[in-house]
């Protein structure tokens, strides 16, 4: 296979890293926001006045996919058309995708749980939105740390 020449290995590795950094947190966020959305709809079926609170809580686990998108974007940005990436840089960029991919996925799922709990809390008491958001943001921190780590690794490529 002429196309898959040795020179391209670095580039391919970088692309896989970028795909991983987005796909995995993307799946996590989709699941989490999906479940939280159903939960929010449950509350709204009975009490439509709580729309703002439950919407904010539902949206929180979507950030992991956004961070994954940023990392994927930065990795792809390192690839220049017509220039093959050397193997070492390719491997670093591939590894850069891992922290965001893995931590993003797990934190999205667990943040989803906290969001749903928060939505159920809002269902019980009107003023619980801020507390719910703060609790969910605790999980957000780990995704942010993963974002920074992935970002730093990209810088070394």
């Amino acid at each position, binding site marked *: 296979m002429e196309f898959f020449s040795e020179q391209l290995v670095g580039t391919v590795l970088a692309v896989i890293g970028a795909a991983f950094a987005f796909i995995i947190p993307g799946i996590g966020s989709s*699941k989490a926001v999906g*479940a*939280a959305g*159903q*939960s*929010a*709809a*449950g*509350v709204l*079926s*009975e*009490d439509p006045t709580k729309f703002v609170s439950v919407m904010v809580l539902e949206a929180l686990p979507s950030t992991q996919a956004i961070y994954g998108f940023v990392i994927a974007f930065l990795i792809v940005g390192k690839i220049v058309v017509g220039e093959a990436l050397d193997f070492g840089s390719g491997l670093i960029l591939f590894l850069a995708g891992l922290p965001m991919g893995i931590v993003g996925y797990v934190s999205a799922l667990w943040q989803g*749980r906290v969001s*749903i*709990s928060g*939505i*159920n809390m809002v*269902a*019980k008491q009107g003023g619980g939105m801020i507390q719910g958001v703060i609790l969910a943001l605790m999980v957000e921190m780990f995704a942010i740390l993963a974002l920074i780590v992935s970002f730093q690794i990209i810088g070394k490529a």
Partner: protein
Amino acid sequence: MKESTDTRYVYTISRIRVIEQKMLSPAMLERMIEAGTPEEALKVLHDAGYGYAGEGYSVGDYERLLSEEQEKVYRLLMETVPDTREFDFLIIKNDYHNLKVCLKAEFSDQAVEDAYLLSPSLVPGKQLMDLLRERNFSGLPAPMAESAAESIEAFTKMQDPQVIDLILDKAHYGHMLMLSDGLGSEFVSKLVNALVDLTNLKMLLRAKLIKKPRGFLESLLIEGGSFDKEFYHKLFELGYDQIASACVDTEYYRLLTESINALKLSGSLAGFEKLCDNYLVDVLKTVKYAIFGIEPLVAYYLAKELEIKNVRIIMVGKINGLAQYAIRERLRETYV
């Protein structure tokens, strides 16, 4: 207990979290007890959103109000969950009750009054009546059909309506165990096991109370649950005080100690039944904050059932002019 991660029920759970706010709190029950007339007590229910909107309920048909309230809960589950069959185990007790009512009415040549048939049930009461009249059991779930045929046969042989109760009660618990096993939920298994255990313990205490022989107990005990029949026979031989201490390693130690004290004071099982309900409420409360799985839905349905039991105690008390303390004494703990 293993926590469920099944996300199929999140919509219904969140919806229930809102509706749960309207459940009767101890303060509201107290208001009902302190009401001067049954009408005033009924008004508390009305304010709590009991029954279907726009229907006027009078004190005379409070039973209809209560059964419609339970139906409302069941209907909410049926409308919103992915697999409605999963809740069959909660309602088959009404089917078996209806079966008993229909068979006993038939054997004593009486017409079945609608008020005696309970809903929600798997087979609607009217349909059950028709099926039984035609002796057409193919429309019933298999365990029900078998037990119906068995009880008809036993009754024609022995002419004793009690055998109908015996056969159908056993069939009911067997059927419930079978249905709940399929759900694979630890909480539901624990709950159903507790129901079987508590029924068996009740039989045991009753048999002791009316001084029946060992063989009598044998015929009453239900298979399944946490203990084997040998265990109950061993307990049967013991004195009241030793029964509780023989159960020291089980979940029911505290329940038995308290209820045997009450039993010795009053000579009736009313205290035991109340403590059983309180025990069940405690089990239900363990999933009060769960966000996934079938558990919160089951807990809500049963919590509502216990709430309605409380309301019935108060309404019956009010209508019959019972003293407030006597009503309070009978009340069960509340879920909220």
